[in-house]
């Protein structure tokens, strides 16, 4: 965990006081909605279909148990007893009252949580690998650099009124769990031939109306130069980015229209002006940040303890372990992914009771730490292998041991038309029906790794473009219609999916997905050939034929 200092605490508390005054002036009529809107958005407050929605930041996806309890408290006291974890390591509350928001923010501030950088045209919450600091083989903990960027960008005036929102993601592993290629800036920590730490920098990725996979703008930027390089990119964007057309305002459009070569020349020129300025980072700054990340005092534990060997006889435990438990950098420990995708439930939702209980389990089994991933699942990052059977039983009692991580029912879905004022169609009921169709674990396991992503509109909060199977809800003649893509992915080999044909109606979506899956099972050359490998080998056509032959 990262320990905030007095500057951080003061900043967060001052922000609460400021917003309390703004809300008071809004409710008295001193501020109009036009004047207030930008202020509420800077504090994570949207207006959705039923009420205000409050989005809280979980920087780089790391939560302490007391912070998770504070989120449970907000869900219980100010909302309807649950929260929704998003695809950008935030949590949303759907029913918050404006008049009570300052109190909710004040309660969160007591544990160092805030809502800055969760909305508005500014630098958003920096996201990272939910396994940061514990993943075997990573270059180093990417949260150190995430925190550096967070400190530099929070309330930075140059980044607070950008042409559009701006998102950065950082990974330090070869396998990209942070989806860096679909971010405005993606950073991959690497070492150069001298063994120095730096970044491969990607720019111009993003989904939404006009999706692009990010392009490498520079193969190596030394760690000490990363702030100046990011700032150079932001300056070029600030100078040339379209402010006249919201649909063309993201940096991806600028990179596409200028071309990566010209864009990189502009950045390089700007960078030369500022790289040797105060933006150059001293080693002491990094070391100071590093020193404020507290790492657990791990015990020396056996690789395969008795408790684990004994539990292996239980097929239910084994089913969960195989999909939910991943190797840890320290022998005797594991990373445990907690599925927030129970069969038939909205993806990413957790009740206040589940959050409280999970905080207790984190204290007991994971040194008080919880992680949030962009797939809308949680993780306990430091679980001793000997504790896995006990943890599994405790999670099962909470409804948090569904053994479906990375399987077809581990669906990413935006809130869709059930909650969102921008949505054209519902997402969650589609996800619920699909989880029911593939509820049989043996079937899901037979299918293997397959990610379904669902968005209820073209803004693509459900990342449908990069789902192995992507589902986009649109509106046609007053009806919900869903376009299906296949072949997308969000990892290190990120790709956009291809449309298989005309859209289908709400009631047909699950049937179409079943057809696609049946086609895959019939077409794959061997059981180990994953869905994505079959799509890569054969293309869209055989799936298209199967889906539309009888429609």
């Amino acid at each position: 965990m990262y320990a905030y200092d007095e500057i951080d605490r003061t900043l967060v508390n001052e922000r609460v006081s400021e917003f309390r005054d703004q809300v008071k002036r809004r409710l008295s009529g001193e501020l109009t909605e036009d004047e207030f809107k930008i202020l509420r958005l800077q504090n994570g407050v949207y207006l959705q279909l039923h009420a205000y929605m409050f989005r809280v930041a979980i920087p780089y996806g790391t939560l302490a148990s007391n912070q998770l309890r504070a989120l449970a408290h907000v869900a219980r006291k100010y909302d309807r007893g649950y929260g929704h974890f998003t695809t950008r390591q935030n949590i949303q509350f759907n029913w918050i009252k404006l008049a009570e928001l300052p109190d909710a923010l004040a309660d969160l501030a007591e544990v160092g949580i805030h809502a800055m950088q969760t909305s508005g045209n500014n630098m958003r919450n920096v996201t990272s690998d939910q396994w940061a600091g514990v993943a075997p083989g990573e270059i180093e903990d990417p949260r150190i650099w995430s925190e550096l960027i967070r400190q530099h960008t929070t309330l930075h005036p140059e980044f607070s009124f950008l042409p559009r929102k701006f998102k950065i993601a950082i990974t330090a592993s070869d396998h990209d769990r942070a989806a860096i290629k679909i971010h405005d800036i993606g950073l991959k920590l690497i070492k150069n031939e001298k063994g120095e730490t730096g970044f491969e920098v990607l720019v111009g990725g993003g989904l939404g109306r006009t999706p692009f996979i990010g392009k490498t703008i520079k193969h190596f930027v030394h760690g000490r130069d990363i702030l100046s390089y990011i700032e150079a990119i932001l300056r070029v964007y600030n100078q040339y980015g379209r402010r006249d057309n919201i649909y063309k305002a993201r940096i991806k459009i600028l990179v596409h229209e200028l071309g990566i070569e010209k864009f990189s020349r502009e950045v390089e020129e700007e960078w030369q002006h500022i790289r040797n300025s105060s933006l150059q980072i001293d080693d002491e700054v990094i070391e100071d940040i590093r020193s404020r990340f507290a790492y657990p005092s791990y015990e020396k534990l056996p690789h395969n303890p008795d408790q684990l060997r004994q539990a292996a006889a239980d097929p239910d435990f084994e089913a969960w372990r195989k999909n939910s438990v991943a190797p840890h950098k320290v022998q005797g420990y594991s990373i445990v992914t907690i599925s927030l995708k129970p069969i038939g439930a909205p993806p990413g939702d957790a009740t206040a009771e589940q959050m409280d209980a999970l905080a207790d389990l984190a204290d007991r089994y994971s040194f008080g730490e919880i992680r949030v991933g962009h797939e809308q699942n949680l993780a306990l990052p430091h679980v001793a292998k000997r504790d896995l059977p006990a943890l599994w039983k405790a999670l099962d009692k909470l409804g948090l041991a569904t053994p479906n991580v990375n399987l077809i029912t581990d669906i990413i879905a935006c809130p869709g038309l059930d909650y969102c004022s921008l949505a054209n169609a519902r997402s969650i009921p589609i996800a619920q029906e699909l989880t029911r169709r593939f509820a049989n674990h043996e079937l899901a396991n037979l299918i293997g790794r397959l990610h379904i992503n669902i968005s209820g509109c073209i803004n693509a909060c459900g990342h449908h473009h990069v789902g192995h199977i992507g589902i986009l809800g649109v509106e046609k003649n007053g009806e919900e219609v869903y376009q299906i893509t296949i072949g997308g992915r969000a990892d290190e080999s990120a790709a956009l999916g291809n449309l298989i044909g005309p859209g289908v109606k709400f009631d047909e979506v699950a049937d179409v997905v079943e057809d696609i899956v049946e086609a895959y099972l019939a077409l794959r050359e061997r059981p180990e050939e994953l869905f994505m490998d079959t799509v890569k080998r054969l293309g869209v056509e055989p799936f298209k034929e199967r889906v539309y032959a009888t429609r």
Partner: protein
Amino acid sequence: MTSPLEQKKIKIAGPSVVTANRTWDGIVVYRTAAKSWSADLSEAAIVRNSDEAKALLAESVADDVGAIGPYIAPVQVGADGKIEPGNLREQIRRTGVTIGQPVQV
């Protein structure tokens, strides 16, 4: 459902109301004939042509403290005068999410 945020022209094809969200708590409200807001759709003022709609919307926008984001939404008026939402979006705003919530309220 086309988001009302994308409404560019006021063009109504049938009976409509003005709806918004109440400022202090965000709940769904409807403009009434008494120049007030009500959470009950049955109390909404019905407009049947563009001029009426423009006038009701202008009056609603002017009440910036009472409610935010007002827009014109279609409704269906039954033979008995009962008012029902005119599309799925407005149905969801009126009756709530179409899914079970994790915590029943």
